[in-house]
């Protein structure tokens, strides 16, 4: 068990634990906090893969802006605990083992695949931010400008939606 593998399992356990906690918690603020744990552990996994710029952007944008937005909305709307509904027990008893079996089947299929890409171990090199930015502004400049338009439209949309009606 080498050190990178150990770190991978710890971060993966944190991510899966956070996702499970998102499902199991009743109050949306606890689900939001679990999702933040998932995002930070995913940022750790990106660092493990050498994608350091993507890891930093993940924490700054996802963890520091998008989830803050979620937390603000939960606080301002005073979202309470979820109401209790009665789900069929059959769905729980049959569904969860079935889901586990399907997941295990997919995992086995992926691991035993003969595809060279999947079996290739990750290289240890670090992705330089300079190469990333060069590619972003040369090959991907058109989608880049389009996303800036997209954000502008989103800001305008949010402003229009949040307006009070002028009666």
């Amino acid at each position, binding site marked *: 068990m080498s050190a990178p593998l150990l770190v991978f399992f710890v971060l993966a356990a944190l991510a899966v634990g956070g996702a499970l906690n998102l499902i199991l918690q009743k109050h949306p603020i606890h689900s939001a906090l679990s999702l933040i744990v998932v995002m930070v552990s995913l940022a750790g996994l990106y660092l493990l893969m050498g994608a350091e710029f993507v890891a930093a952007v993940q924490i*700054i944008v996802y963890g520091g802006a998008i989830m803050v937005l979620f937390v603000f909305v939960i606080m301002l709307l005073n979202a309470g605990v979820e109401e209790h509904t009665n789900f069929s027990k059959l769905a729980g008893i049959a569904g969860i083992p079935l889901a586990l079996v399907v997941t295990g089947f997919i995992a086995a299929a992926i691991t035993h695949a003969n595809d060279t890409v999947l079996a290739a171990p990750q290289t240890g090199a670090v992705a330089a931010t300079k190469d990333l930015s060069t590619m972003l502004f040369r090959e991907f400049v058109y989608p880049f400008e389009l996303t800036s338009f997209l954000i502008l439209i989103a800001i305008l949309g949010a402003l229009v939606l949040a307006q009070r009606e002028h009666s």
Partner: protein
Amino acid sequence: MSTFLNANAFLLISLVKIVIMLFLVLTVNAYLTWFERKVVAHIQSRWGPHRVGPHGLLQPLADGAKFLLKEDPTPAGVDKFVYFLAPLLSLALALTSIAIIPFGPDPLPWLILGQKIYLGITDLNIGILGLFAITALGVYGIALAGWSSNSKYPLMGGLRSSAQMISYELAMTMSVVGVLLTASSFSLRDIIEAQQHAHGLFGWQGIFSWNIFAGPLPQILGFLCFFVAAIAETNRVPFDLPEAESELVAGFHTEYASFKFAMFFIAEYTSMITVSCLCSILFFGGWLSPFPPSWTFTFYLPSLILIPFGAWVIWDGLRYETIIGKVILPGIGTAMLAIGAALIFLPALNSFIQGPFWLLSKILTFLFVYVWMRGTLPRFRYDQLMSFGWKLLLPVSLANVVITAGAILWRGY
């Protein structure tokens, strides 16, 4: 045993460095509170703490004892998990940001366990971006503290404070981009190296090769934007409406008592220290001396400061009648004299200490400016604060980026 040590040398040395750094940061925090109370008091023509120990130097110890021994009530109806998590989150994130800051250029002259020991816990390739990531997560401590207290004043204070923090975070990150364009790297060590080799203003070296004076465009606007935005980030005067006593009881930490309040307190002062470190590293040359490198006689400046100061501490301590005054202060003074003398006679140690000495003096200067502003400036109203951040600071920092990029292209860097 020794194979285990050698195999995990990097991990063990990092752990030891982290422990030492934590201890140092917490001590500096404690004496920063003393410094602030003394300076604000002298600005207001009074003495400040001067009873607990000579010159009030033991006041932080008394404060620490108070925080540990005071009753720690938990209000009714709070969300227990989030209530306990919020101060922990603030403190952990604030203390983590110290890990990225480099404190000196050279490693220690001897190898420990076969590893070179640099001053500073690590040097990330994405140094400054990682620092911004940690700052971005710091919003949660305050928002969750305000919400979980189950009371209207903390909720208002928490929401206002976190809205203020995310607004000024944008201006802060944008104003640093000019420095990043000049240095072509995110790493803090590379930024200081770039300032060392920069072509200074009019060709002069020393202070005129720092980012604020030199480079394709002197980053004066960037520095002002960064400093103002960072003050708003750390919720200090004049941007401290969300936690001001006369406004919102105490803002987001109203319902927090002794130790949890101390955690918020430490988090705020530590982020003050981090911002001072960043200002000095990004804009003011970090560990570079303001004098040109050819003026080697300035290497004796640390000794020149330590020796008279040590003599004064000895003289001052002998005036007291308590043990702390009569014995410990002269002891500290003698130690300072000894270090000052050793620096004159050991040139290797002297050249090693130059970098950290200049960095620490710059950090102290910025901390003094922080405290000075607290003593003199009134605070912004909340709507003035938000319009200042969005309508003035963000466009100005964007303009700084554009003009810096233009200057780089025009001057052919």
